[in-house]
């Protein structure tokens, strides 16, 4: 029994808007998603001004430092909003009993969680747009119109995958206290080996192989390629996009399974040593 889907879309829009509004009131999210990338790009571009780096390997030739660094750090902001933000946000919402509150209302959990994902993705994309809005005039970064469609698709797919993985990780950790180290320890080391802070050229093979396994490298690589004119046709990186999509599906499947089998954990019962809800599968007679 469902209500008309038009009202569900209105409901989703309303929750996405609220989600974004609440994220913008969160100082931690503002700092890591919007401010920190701006500082990184400005400071490091000043320190390395005049340097040229081989952002896409030898085939791409060398580009000015800011031309490599701005899209890379953009992905850093995107991951902060979509991955870290979703892991911490949903884990603490569950800890605080917010998911339980939602479960007691007619709001479908899919709309509530969907609003988290869409809100995080839109916030992350806005952070990238803001970064370019500063970097293009201030640092002379070039945006190529013919590669813009590929850049936008890569950004959207990357945001969706990062948010889906954030949801999956949030569904796997037990408490919000665990979520902070788990989110940082999965994201930060990967950001170092995925070519965000410096190109991967010259790294040991095993580091490259490790990086290639995870999605972050592919998001960075595909997005960077959209700003290096010589590399690919129109900036499209089919292999990277496929790898990103696979990780997104994995994230969604894990999250869906976990949230279905363990729907209302995290109301604080586990920590107080009380019986876990749904510990015993039971049946109510449908009399």
């Amino acid at each position: 029994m469902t209500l008309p889907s038009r009202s569900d879309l209105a409901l989703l829009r309303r929750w996405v808007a609220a989600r974004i509004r609440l994220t913008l009131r969160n100082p931690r999210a503002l700092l890591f998603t919007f401010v920190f990338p701006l500082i990184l790009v400005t400071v490091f571009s000043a320190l390395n001004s005049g340097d040229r780096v081989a952002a896409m390997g030898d085939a791409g030739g060398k580009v000015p430092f800011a031309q490599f660094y701005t899209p890379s750090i953009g992905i850093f902001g995107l991951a902060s909003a979509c991955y870290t933000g979703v892991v911490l946000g949903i884990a603490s919402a569950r800890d605080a009993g917010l998911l339980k509150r939602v479960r007691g209302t007619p709001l479908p959990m899919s709309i509530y969680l969907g609003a988290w994902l869409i809100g995080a993705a839109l916030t992350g994309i806005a952070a990238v747009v803001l970064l370019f809005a500063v970097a293009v005039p201030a640092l002379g970064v070039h945006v190529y119109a013919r590669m813009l469609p590929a850049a936008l698709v890569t950004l959207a797919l990357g945001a969706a995958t990062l948010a889906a993985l954030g949801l999956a990780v949030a569904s796997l950790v037990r408490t919000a206290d665990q979520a902070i180290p788990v989110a940082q320890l999965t994201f930060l080391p990967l950001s170092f080996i995925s070519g965000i802070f410096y190109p991967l050229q010259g790294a040991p093979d095993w580091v490259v192989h490790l990086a290639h396994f995870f999605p972050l490298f592919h998001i960075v690589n595909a997005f960077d390629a959209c700003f290096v004119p010589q590399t690919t046709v129109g900036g499209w990186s089919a292999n990277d996009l496929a790898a990103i999509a696979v990780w997104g599906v994995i994230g969604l499947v894990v999250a869906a399974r976990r949230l279905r089998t363990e729907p209302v954990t995290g109301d604080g019962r586990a920590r107080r040593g009380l019986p876990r809800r749904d510990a015993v599968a039971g049946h109510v007679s449908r009399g």
Partner: protein
Amino acid sequence: MIANSLAVAGNGRPAAPHDEPAIQVAGLRKSYDGVVQALDGVDLQVRRGELLALLGPNGAGKTTLVEILEGHREADGGDVRVLGFAPGRREREFRARIGIVLQEEGLDPAITVREAIELYSAAYPHPRPADEVAELVGLSDRRDARVHTLSGGQRRRLDLALGIAGDPELLFLDEPTTGFDPAARRQSWDLIARLRALGKTILLTTHYMDEAQHLADRVAVIANGRMIAEGTPDTLGRGAGEAAVVAFRLPDGVELADLPLPPGAELEPRERRLFLRTTTPTRDLAPLLAWAAERDTELEGLTVGRPSLEDVYLQLTEEPT
């Protein structure tokens, strides 16, 4: 279920005759890890428009019972119907018709009172206007305050606001006034009484006997996973043979054995106050008053009272020693 689906197709509501109870529970069982028997065959009926107070010591099974009725948990066995639905299936239509005020439900700390009321009621078919709801719970002047700036009592009132914002016909209130100052509590009682007057069905769990006495049409007491008593706040416990408590101070120089009283009177030695629980206070008092008049003795502090709900509750839930 087929009958239900057909009726739903007709008018969006399941087939529920108006005289069908709002809550109907029979032989409800629930155990945790197959060991702890939280509910051991509970029967309960709550009529539409009735306010039932559910009392019981911590760990008696109150929370488990209420969470099964709300659809948060599934029972191991027994029948449970709430507004004609099987709550364990958690149909959206069911959730649109109930309101839940629990004790440990979170809220985004940065959301304002008005935003929370509007957002969390948006999925109900007929939400009440946010300003009206804020007014009802006495949060009008805090409408634009963020949740993390609210006091504990104000947070609790916001929980109540979110419970009623969707205008549900059945409301679950889990200790709604815990932590309130007396004025806020009176205000909440007025609100709950007003909701009841609007014909809402309310299931209230509370630790405050005066709350149950003040608000409830009927009281049910649960202990060790079983319903051990139920009735109106005034009649509860009469079945146990207790209509009245006679009390007075034992005159100086008189012993308990000197008095013409039926057996069972208890003496509280420090104050020398004597208590007699009886179903026949008039008959029991007659010889006593004659005895006192004969000796021209005044029975200081003589009272004949009904046991309070608290007395009855404490007696009912007393652990056997």
